[in-house]
């Protein structure tokens, strides 16, 4: 650790304080609660000194000075509220407003505009300017980015966040003087990563979002902080919802709450790809197949049918004749509940999910080497990062942002080993290109097998490069090691073994919002929650008050095999599309009774006998575990009246099957009760919910649909999950650890790992039904990489 910088004494508005030498005056003021207004200053981006809003008086300096560019110095005496300063601010606002269209009532940023706020706080009441203002028509730069030039105050935040932050450099400044204008990279349109960061960071209404603009006013929405439903990085996103005919409509997503692990960041999916929720093709009614055709049914009919059939199969063909496939997109509580449902209600271990990373092998490697996992926050702070495989820019946009900005702001070292010249190489201290599929051999080389080097040099890397890299890595303490699904099984162990002695932390990259959660919650035929083998079942039986079936179940492929062989009589697929993901033959699903819980008519759903329309992440509460192991709470934002959360559906099926739901969901058992988390705070659902509870003679505050009660149970059973629930409820992230529960060897099945191969603009089924993502992809030409500044 470097020495902490020396503290200097300064006085601001008569208040004495200290700040580390080098701190910018504006930040030092902030720390003692003194707000210095600013437009162009943005923490973490380069300094501009362009807006002149932050001018303050510093003793012994004749001119006012910009607080955003002046570092504190010993003995500095500052006045941020002197008459001169106040007057200057007022004038600066007058000057910027001279050419600004003062039509706030129709501006998209009205109510969330820093210029508006600033004018309210510091501004002048009347305008001295009477000449004609310049007008330009608004321009559409991409499906999601619109530009309204007269509103732009040229703070250059957009240019910097796109260049410095995103390393896309798609925005520039053109012309000069009064003609200065922000310009997109393709003259009249943008070709970029469409992250919308520029829109988010724009202090005024100059850059607006294609999907949100002019839809509503900020104050007409409710803003609900939740976790993104797309990739495994776990960005916090704020969902803006408003009442609609069918519940609560999602109007936008953004990151107004910058306290999340993503800070300022959100990618195109997190920001825009919520529109699938309102897609016309969304299934909003239970469907039952009759004579080869789906016909709408009531929930009661559908649940009864499913419960009856499941019961029949279990009784007639035995629990081994039924299989359950879980989801990478449902909450931890739902996943946990689902495996419990399979094991206790159905009595089978035939449960699996679409695996996008070898998390069991990772858990094994971590526990065997007493190593730790790294959080998303660690990636931004680590002194060095090693990335093997994967292309985070495409598949883990937040991770890419963290790495990039760690390199930029903290000068961290960054090593890449990849078979492709991925974009992040531009930040790399060393980039070593190896042949496709050679990641495991590279690990072998790291572990000391010099002979492996020979097979690694065909793609450009030399023996020398490789040795250099290995030596460099050996010298890196507190390294964060990140690897993609290229590494599986024993290779993961070898890698962890190599780096663990240097106090390294690790991240194993999986593909969907909760793939890590699905694995942690035990959606495996041979593993219980927390990667426990059946040898350790006793703890679970004790908690559950029921026996865990002894027999190891069938994995996903085996289930399809059994279906083909006529041995599988029923299949329950929750939020998953195995037919497409594993390229399986849907024909084999004709014989068994298939229930699919989903939002859309997927390749798997087509083969179903019953389809139960499910709510998705933004329409329910619960927790997600990011691919790093960061646990966060979802809050219900949107609401579609006629669909139900997977949690509720599972409980209802269990209830209809005659199972005591109190054994399934420990509501009322722990300390917590549903205080409204599972219900949209503003929707009609609260009423529906309490009607249901009252009909069953239950108290409204303890509910079987309460995911927090299940979280209690998860926390009791999985040691690494024992984190502060208060913190989670307050919207913070808590890093979980893969803590060893037992000494048994954890089985891993590398062959079952099938990466999703999603890109920045795709997101499995959800992406297919996102109009915004589709239009972005259509507009995108070759996707040629652009050079840096």
């Amino acid at each position, binding site marked *: 650790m470097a020495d902490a910088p020396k503290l200097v004494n300064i006085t601001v508005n008569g208040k004495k304080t200290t700040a580390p030498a080098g701190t910018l005056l504006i930040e030092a003021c902030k720390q003692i609660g003194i707000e210095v207004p600013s437009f162009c200053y943005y923490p973490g981006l380069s*300094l*501009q*000194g*362009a*807006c*002149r*809003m932050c*001018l303050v008086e510093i003793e012994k300096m*004749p*001119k*006012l000075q910009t607080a955003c*560019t002046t570092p504190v110095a010993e003995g500095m005496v500052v006045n941020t509220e002197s008459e001169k300063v106040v*007057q*200057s601010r007022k*004038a*600066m606002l*007058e*000057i*910027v407003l*001279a*050419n600004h269209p003062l039509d706030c009532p129709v501006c998209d940023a009205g109510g969330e505009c820093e210029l508006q706020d600033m004018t309210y706080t510091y501004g002048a009441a009347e305008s*001295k*300017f*009477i*000449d*004609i203002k310049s007008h330009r028509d608004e321009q559409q730069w991409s499906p999601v980015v619109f530009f309204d030039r007269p509103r732009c*105050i*040229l703070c250059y935040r957009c240019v910097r966040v796109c260049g410095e932050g995103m390393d896309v450099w798609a925005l520039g*400044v*053109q*012309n*000069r*003087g*009064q*003609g*200065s*204008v922000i310009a997109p990279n393709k003259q009249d349109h943008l070709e970029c990563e469409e992250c919308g960061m520029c829109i988010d960071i724009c202090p005024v209404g100059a850059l607006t979002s294609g999907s949100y603009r002019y839809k509503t006013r900020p104050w007409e929405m409710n803003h609900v902080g939740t976790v993104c439903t797309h990739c495994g990085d776990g960005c916090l996103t704020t969902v803006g919802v408003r009442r609609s005919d069918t519940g609560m409509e999602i109007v936008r997503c953004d990151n107004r709450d910058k306290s999340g692990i993503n800070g300022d960041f959100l990618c195109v999916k997190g920001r825009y790809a919520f529109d699938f929720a309102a897609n016309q093709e969304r299934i909003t009614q239970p469907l039952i197949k009759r004579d080869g055709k789906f016909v709408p049914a009531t929930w009661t009919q559908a649940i009864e049918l499913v419960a009856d059939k499941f019961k029949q199969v279990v009784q007639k063909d035995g629990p081994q004749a039924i299989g359950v496939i879980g989801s990478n997109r449902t909450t931890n509580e739902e996943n946990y509940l689902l495996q419990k449902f399979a094991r206790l209600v159905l009595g089978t271990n035939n449960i699996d999910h679409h695996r996008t990373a070898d998390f069991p092998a990772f858990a094994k490697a971590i526990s065997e080497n007493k190593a730790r996992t790294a959080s998303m926050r660690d990636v931004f702070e680590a002194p060095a990062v090693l990335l093997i495989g994967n292309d985070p820019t495409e598949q883990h946009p937040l991770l890419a942002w963290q790495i990039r900005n760690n390199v930029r702001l903290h000068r961290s070292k960054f090593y890449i080993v990849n078979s492709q010249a991925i974009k992040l190489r531009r930040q790399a201290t060393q980039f070593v290109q190896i042949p496709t599929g050679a990641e495991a051999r590279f690990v072998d080389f790291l572990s000391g097998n010099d002979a492996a080097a020979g097979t690694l040099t065909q793609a450009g890397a030399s023996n020398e490069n490789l040795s250099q890299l290995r030596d460099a890595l050996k010298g890196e303490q507190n390294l964060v090691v990140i690897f993609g699904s290229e590494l599986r099984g024993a290779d993961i162990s070898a890698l962890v073994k190599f780096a663990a002695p240097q106090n390294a932390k690790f991240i194993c990259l999986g593909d969907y919002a909760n793939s890590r959660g699905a694995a942690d919650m035990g959606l495996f035929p041979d593993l219980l929650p927390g990667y426990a083998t059946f040898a350790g079942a006793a703890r679970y039986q004790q908690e559950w008050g029921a026996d865990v079936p002894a027999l190891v179940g069938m994995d996903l492929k085996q289930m399809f095999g059994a279906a083909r062989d006529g041995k599988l009589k029923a299949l329950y697929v929750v939020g998953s599309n195995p037919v497409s993901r594993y390229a399986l033959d849907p024909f084999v699903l004709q014989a068994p009774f298939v229930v699919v819980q989903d939002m859309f008519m997927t390749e798997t759903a087509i083969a179903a006998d019953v389809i139960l329309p499910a709510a998705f992440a933004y329409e329910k509460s619960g927790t997600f575990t990011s691919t790093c192991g960061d646990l966060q709470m979802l809050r219900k934002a949107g609401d579609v009246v006629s669909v139900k959360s997977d949690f509720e559906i599972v409980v209802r099926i269990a209830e209809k099957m005659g199972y005591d739901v109190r054994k399934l969901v420990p509501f009322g058992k722990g300390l917590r009760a549903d205080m409204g988390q599972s219900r949209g705070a503003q929707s009609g659902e609260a009423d529906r919910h309490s009607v249901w509870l009252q009909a069953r003679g239950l108290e409204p505050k303890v509910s079987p649909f309460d995911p927090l009660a299940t979280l209690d149970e998860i926390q009791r059973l999985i040691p690494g999950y024992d984190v502060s629930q208060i913190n989670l409820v307050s919207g913070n992230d808590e890093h979980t650890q893969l803590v060893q529960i037992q000494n048994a060897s954890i089985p891993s099945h590398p062959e079952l790992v099938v990466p999703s191969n999603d890109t920045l603009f795709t997101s499995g089924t959800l992406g297919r039904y996102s109009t915004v993502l589709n239009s972005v992809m259509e507009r995108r030409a070759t996707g040629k990489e652009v050079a840096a500044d």
Partner: protein
Amino acid sequence: MAYLVSHPDEVKVISSRFGKGAADIDRYLELDGYKAVQMALQMGSEAVINEVKASNLRGRGGAGFPTGMKWSFVPKESAKPKYVLCNGDESEPGTCKDRLIFEHDPHAVIEGAMIAAIAVNAHKAYIYIRGEYRYLLEIMQKSIADVYARGFAGKNIFGSGYDLDVYWHGGAGAYEVGEESALMESLEGKRGVPRIRPPFPAVVGLWGGPTVINNAETLASVPHIIMMGGQKYADIGTPKNGGTRLFCLSGHLEKPGVYELPMGYNLKKMIYEVGGGISNGRKLKAVVPGGSSTPVLTADEIDIAMDFDSVAKAGSMLGSGGVVVIDDATCIVKFALRTMQFYRHESCGWCIPCREGTDWLNKTLTRFHAGGGLAKDIDNIRYLAENMLGRTFCPLGDAAAMPTIGFVKKFREEFEAHLEGKPCPFEKHGAISQLPVMSH
């Protein structure tokens, strides 16, 4: 080609080789060229700086910063290469002196830049010439080639063991690029937007290395200082204002032209004797004493010494040496408007007060001059200019504000004469034409 003039009061130092074919290297050598640089090599860094300090040479680019002191700010040790950058962007309206130097004595600039490099122990010097001066750039390119051909530049110059490269660089039309930090940006291939200071160029300049930036005339004076000795040079001028400078006399004069006069020469004399008095038998109304950025002086404020300190005391600035003489048939509002039109066109646009302020002032003055002025406009113009002053990112904002304040303050009655739809009392002209704001 620029025309040469002369007057008995002139003291020819910088202009001593004008009209003598010194652009030719042989001729330059005959006229004592490249002796000073060899002396400098002998003297060593510190002695050169001391000599320049003793000369009281102050920057001819406009700010009048003591040159020797500027050089002494360059750190002795630097991990990054150091540079000398000659500012030949000459774009301040009223200024056309560097042009003469580049045309008639280009080697003096090269030699001055070399001496500056030796003084701060830099091994690379760049000579930046504005894009419009293409013929001068060509002269410079040839001169530099000649210097290399003689072995005066490059490795081991004059057998001294000292390596020194000299390069030319051309602009492409931008006044703001004359501002020293914008100049560096431009040289680095960027938009001419100034840099945040501190750090100052002497510490962090071109490509991050310490950089000395001097005006072409400043540098061209240096070989003479080395040759004649700092004290002797200082003695030509007034205290703290050493030597001579090229004054560019323009406007309503009988004999406009560029004259080399000692620092401290009387302005009134400059106008009536050197410049031959007001043309067409008219009377003097006002003088802009140091280029368009400097506040106007009225006819009765001109009995002053033309050195940095005296002009400052009179409430204006010596600036870049552009003396613009305005007769009594001229409309000051129109003059103020044309001045503002320039700054609006040349503002880099980076900071709010300059970008928006110049536009606002230009709009108001345009309307005002066209007869649409309101009484409150006069105060608003002043209010706006005063609020730009000292608050912009770089001094261009000040350069726009200062003269404006001066015009309103000193010629308020002319502004008032335009009020209430009255046509401009001086006008034969119609509405002023408008340069387009930069856009492609």
